[in-house]
Structures are given as C-alpha cells and as structure tokens.
C-alpha cells in the first residue's frame, strides 16, 4: 500500500466513489478504503429512486441539482447508469396531507421545479393500474423529471472513472484508526497498513458513527433496518415511482420489468438485525395489491434488507467536523443518499479543494444539533 495521499475516503458506496471521482478530476491524489466490496453497504440495497419533491429546501435543492448532473452522467463517465425519468407520483389521502402537499409544491416551484397537483381522475393517466378509490386518494403530486438509475452501475462507473484519473481504491481493506494531532488529522490506519494524510472523509454509511467514535466525536445517527422486495419481470405497465407517506409504501417498475418496492413493518425499532422477515412480505404484498389489484397474479421473487443511516432531522451531515481539522462528514443519508450523491460530492469537492463553503453546507453541518430547533424533513417513505 502507498505511504501518503492528499485525501482518504472511508467507504466505497455511491458517495465515496462519486467523491473519489470528483476529487481525482480536480487533480487531487485520493485514496479510498472499502472494508468489503464496492456497493456492499446501503448502496447495494437501494431502491434506486431519484426524487426532487421534498419538504425541506436543502433536500429539494440537493436533489434538483443532482438530477441535472444525473442527466449527463452516463456520457460524462462513459458508462450507462440506466438513468430514466418516469416521474414520481406521490399519493395524497386527506385534507391534512393536501395542505402539506400544497406547501411543498409551492416551495419546490420557487426553486424552478416543474411539479403538478393532480385531481383523483388524473391519477390513472400516469399509472393506469392504481385503484384510486381503494386507496382513498384525494389527489396526488407529480413531477415528471423524477426517476431512477441503477445504483450498482452508477457506483462502478464512478469507481472506474476515478481509477482512470489516478485515484486508488482498495477493497477488502478496513479502516480501524484515525490519527489526530493538535486537533488536525495526520493519518489513517487500516488492516493493511498506515497512510499519511491531512484530510479524511467519513462516508461509511451506517458505520459512520463508529468511524467518528475513533476520533472521540459522537454522531447522532442511528441505524434503521429496511426491507425491500422485487417481483418477477413482466411487460412495462407504468413508468412512475408511486409513493405514499401515509402508508409508507414506495414501488416502481424498473426498466427490465420487475417491480421493486418497500414499506416499513408496523412497530419496527432501530437496530442492526439483518434477517428478512415474513411480516414484511405479507404487509408489502397486502398493501401493494390494494394499490394495484392486478398485481396479485405477479410472483414475488426476492427480498432483502438494508439500513438507513438516520439523523434526528432525516437530513445528511456534511462538511468539516467542529474541533477536528481535516475530518469531513458525508453521512446520515436516511433513505435518500443515492439521489443526492452527485450534488453532495460536488459541494464537498469544492470545500476540500477550494475551501469554498456554501449555504447548504452550513445548514447541514454537525453543529446544527447543538441545542437549536431542527427543521425536520417531512417527506420520508420506506
């Protein structure tokens, strides 16, 4: 292993690999460590959805700017990441939800997003198989430029492009110590040896709080287990991702024809347990066939678990750690770390290379949890 580098990234998920690419593109000597294989964390369990319809301005902005990058990413990285824009259809079930939806839509429109509020009889124009009455929909919001991309292909494409630019990516290599001297990062120890560096990025997903603890820093992140399933493939019936905050369900039909979707199990608590449960399968099947009765004949094929890395306000922690120069946080992504990764890593690159900070970076710093009122993201599913 090499002896020194400008920047160490801990974690080979979509965020770590994207950051490695962006830094390498700016001529930075960057080294990434991944304890298993690339995309082995949350990225490999991801539902692939890309949504710009959020309730907090920071999340909406991050997603809107990310979509602009996703639109050109296959060409930029010279590999197809299977980005498709079929839109997101968010079901609205009652007056109270409609009020929140109207508020969200007006904020989103102020950022330049094209998004509509649909009447119940317009819903089937977007997704014909939905039983609008059966799910008591009083309306929906729809943004046609939302969509999905392949998380594996995106991560591998970033990694391949980063390597071509000289970045070093070590898989099956675990970081076990961060050396800090006089409040400044000086190096990182792994199970394969020590490397000198003045910048370390904590992009270790649900393990980020363990990484932070190596320096004595406490992150407020907690792991939440999530289950997700895929059906067999069949002919394309709809293009939009369907979600409901009330029922917690999300599902879409991917390009190859399978439906991928998830839902929280009622009463599920935070923790690290990984075995998939039958309770999830039943609850998912029941809710999905209530939404789209024709799907009752479709076979469920596979089912897997992953973890959301959840912060108290369901928004990520980004930027330099107060008190430790050179220790950068890039975690706490809950259920939306894939869709905002292009913009998140762009902002962090500007900070690391140019020392440039931004309004978003200030708002999402670890500092925000110190005694202030937090602005919680409301539009969360899964």
């Amino acid at each position: 292993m090499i002896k020194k580098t400008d920047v160490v990234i801990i974690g080979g998920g979509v965020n770590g690999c994207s950051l490695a690419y962006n830094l390498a593109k700016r001529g930075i000597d960057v080294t990434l460590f991944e304890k298993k294989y690339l995309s082995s964390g949350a990225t490999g369990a991801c539902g692939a959805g890309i949504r710009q319809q959020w309730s907090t301005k920071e999340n909406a902005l991050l997603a809107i700017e990310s979509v602009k990058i996703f639109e050109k990413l296959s060409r930029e990285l010279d590999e197809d990441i299977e980005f498709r824009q079929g839109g997101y259809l968010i079901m609205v079930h009652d007056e109270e939800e409609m009020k929140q939806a109207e508020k969200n839509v007006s904020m989103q429109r102020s950022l330049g997003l094209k998004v509509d509020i649909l009447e119940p009889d317009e819903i089937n124009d977007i997704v014909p198989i939905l039983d609008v009455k059966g799910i008591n929909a009083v309306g929906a919001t729809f943004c046609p430029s939302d969509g999905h991309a392949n998380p594996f292909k995106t991560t591998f494409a970033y990694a391949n492009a980063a390597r071509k630019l000289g970045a070093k990516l070590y898989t099956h290599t675990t970081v076990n110590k961060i050396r800090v001297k006089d409040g400044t990062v000086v190096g990182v120890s792994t199970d394969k040896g020590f490397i000198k560096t003045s910048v370390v990025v904590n992009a270790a997903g649900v393990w980020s709080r363990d990484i932070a603890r190596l320096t004595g820093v406490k992150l407020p992140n907690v792991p939440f287990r999530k289950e997700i399933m895929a059906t067999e493939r069949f002919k394309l019936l709809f293009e939009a991702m369907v979600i409901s905050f009330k029922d917690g369900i999300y599902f879409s039909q991917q390009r190859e024809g399978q439906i991928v979707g998830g839902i929280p199990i009622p009463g599920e608590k935070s923790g690290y347990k990984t075995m998939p449960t039958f309770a999830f399968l039943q609850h998912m099947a029941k809710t999905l066939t209530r939404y789209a009765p024709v799907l009752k004949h479709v076979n469920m094929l596979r089912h897997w678990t992953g973890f959301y890395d959840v912060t108290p306000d369901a928004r990520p922690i980004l930027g330099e750690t107060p008190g430790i120069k050179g220790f950068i946080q890039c975690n706490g992504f809950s259920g939306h770390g894939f869709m905002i990764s292009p913009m998140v890593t762009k902002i962090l690159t500007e900070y690391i290379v140019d020392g440039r900070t931004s309004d978003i970076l200030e708002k999402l710093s670890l500092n925000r949890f110190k005694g202030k009122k937090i602005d919680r993201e409301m539009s969360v599913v899964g």
Partner: protein
Amino acid sequence: MVKKKIIVCRCEDLTLEDVEKAIDEGYIDLEELRKKLRIGMGPCQGRVCLPIVMKILERKTGKKIPKESLPKARPPIIPVPLGTLASEEK
C-alpha cells in the same frame, strides 16, 4: 467454442462471453461481478448459474473462492404470487 452461444445464466440471459468480458474489465470480485451483470437475480436466485460463474472466475483469476462466500438464496425460496402472500396477513 462459440462463447456468444454458451448461456451461463439462463434467468438473466447471460453468456460466457458476457461474463468473461466483465472479468476482463476488472470485475474480479464475485459480488461486484454479480451486481454488474445481475447474475443470480433471476427466479432461481443463482442456484443454476452461481457455481458456474464461480468456476469461470477461479479459472480466469487463478484464485480459489471460498464456498462460504457464495450468496445465500433469499426468501421466498420459490416465487410466490403477491395475492397469496397478501391473503395470509391476519
């Protein structure tokens, strides 16, 4: 041998040529290879193709892959209609 015609994963319709090409591109980690090509994500969950893919990878890289590193099939072990699953929730 016509590598284009030798099917390795029949669920995902992948040939020997597809698999060897990905390995040549650098996907030499069984898991990364699997995810790149969707090997084992079909109805049989890889029971048919994974042992074969493992052999191809071992042959090309000259490295033995421990049996335990094969991914396990996930529930439901056989495909089940959503309607059947739904009718069982109390």
